[in-house]
């Protein structure tokens, strides 16, 4: 059972603004989807190692060599607000 409080909590965790109508719809949608997904609980998985991926690749290493990367100017071009080499964010310390 998915509750409105849970939806509000999850929206806070993922930092997405939802309108009150969207919150209500989310309760209904997640409830429908997760009830169908309950089926998965039938599947016995004791002593099964979880699979993070479809391939077994671990610790891919490379030489630590200095390389030219994108320039600041190129990166800044897509930033909503960029000044003197910094991404600008609202003031976050007390006023």
């Amino acid at each position, binding site marked *: 059972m998915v509750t409105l409080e849970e939806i509000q909590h999850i929206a806070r965790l993922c930092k997405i603004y939802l309108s009150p109508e*969207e919150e209500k719809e989310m309760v209904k949608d997640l409830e429908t989807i997760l009830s169908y*997904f309950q089926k998965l609980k039938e599947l016995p998985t004791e002593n099964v190692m979880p699979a993070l991926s479809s391939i077994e690749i671990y610790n891919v290493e490379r030489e630590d060599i200095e390389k030219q990367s994108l320039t600041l100017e190129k990166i800044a071009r897509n930033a909503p607000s960029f000044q003197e080499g910094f991404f600008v964010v609202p003031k976050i310390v007390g006023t």
Partner: protein
Amino acid sequence: MEIYRFTARQLSLMLSRKEISCEELVRLLFAYIEKRDPELRAFLTLCQESALEQAKASDLRRSQGRSTGILEGLPIAIKDNICTQGIRTTCASKSLENFIPPYDAHVIEKIKEQGGIVLGKTNMDEFAMGSSCENSAMFPTLNPRNPECIPGGSSGGSASAIASGMSPLALGSDTGGSVRQPASLCGIVGLKPTYGRISRYGLIAFASSLDQIGPMARTVEDVAFLLQAIAGKDNRDSTSLNEPVPDYLKRLQEFPAGIRIGIPKEYFFDKMDREISSACQKAILSLEKKGAKIQEVSLPSTEYAIPTYYLIATAEASANLARYDGIHYGHRTSEKNIKEGCGKSLDILYKKSKGESFGHEVKRRIMLGTYVLSSGYYEAWYLKAMKARALLRQEIQNTLSCVDALITPTSPIPAFKRGEKISDPLAMYLCDIFTVTFSLSGNPAISVPCGTNSQGMPIGLQIVGKFLDEETILRLGYACEPN
């Protein structure tokens, strides 16, 4: 000249025999796109100017005997979640509406190196989340076979562009079926290669352990051709596999005599669409006549594939999409909203920027993914799904040690009418029932057309291969084509 009728291989020959110049080819295609795309709306961005420049450069290279590679002069449409330097790449989302990548994806570098020409960027479900192309924040794309129907998704723009003849080649991306399902619904060929066969560098991430770029075209030969051009190891994607890339075209026309094909009984259930089931059976029979050994197999965990897939994909998406925070790139909410945040302005910036720019399905998946990863639910949902994935993978690898390939329908239903499922997320998720299993296991899978239903809508056959054995499924796919 009816340029839209030719396959990439035919065009390649015509170019090399100088029957047509690349510039002429590109001009003719754009004239055709101008005619068809206003109705079908397969493209989000058209690159006429740069394509013509590239075409002229290709003609010059050819005249000087400096042709660079197998794609020389061939036009390609690119799904709009693959980064193209200097060309807007939106993921069909308001959040990336004005995003211009400062670099090319690995596959785009490969295409350019080999002389390919980027025609434009194709429409998709926002962030590749959807099975109908209706979740595009820009506009829906139509199915060329019947404009009242959806083209499938999420690579619906690429599929529609290929099926209508606006492009001979296209790239899509497949997380749970997003290349195969639209290929099936539009009556074209689409391949999801083995996970790791193609570098994901520059593919905007949805679910990183499942995403794969895949070639789409009207013939298996063209798909093999495009795969050849883009497959291989790339150090910038640590999951790309360091395995030799075979010559996919060499033995394409040779039928793999004596091949053992497994038909998983769970994929031909009683209540299934009869026309789809019988078209697939017919294709299987024709392969048997050519010398394939057909046997029934069982994949009993199939019924758990949809929950497993959606739990893992949404969990990964919730992490991947956290980056659209309105700070580094993408949409940022208005200064007015931020100022009103008094003391909580950074929080407001994050929340409003995402809330305003993500569509409903994207929000739903981020919410679901965050839910299943959150404290108290992680073990019951996400960890459970990862264990189920291990079981599913084991089951498929065991089955594929007894047979050489598996055959199933690609989609349980043909292309449906626009608006039919958009308000029912679960019904939409169930469209992926035949494709997600092989995304979870990482096996290569191709969808090839195997007929049409009584309404004239295409039906697709899915052929699944062993790990890194694209060669066999391409050969089987080739054998299914009317030659």
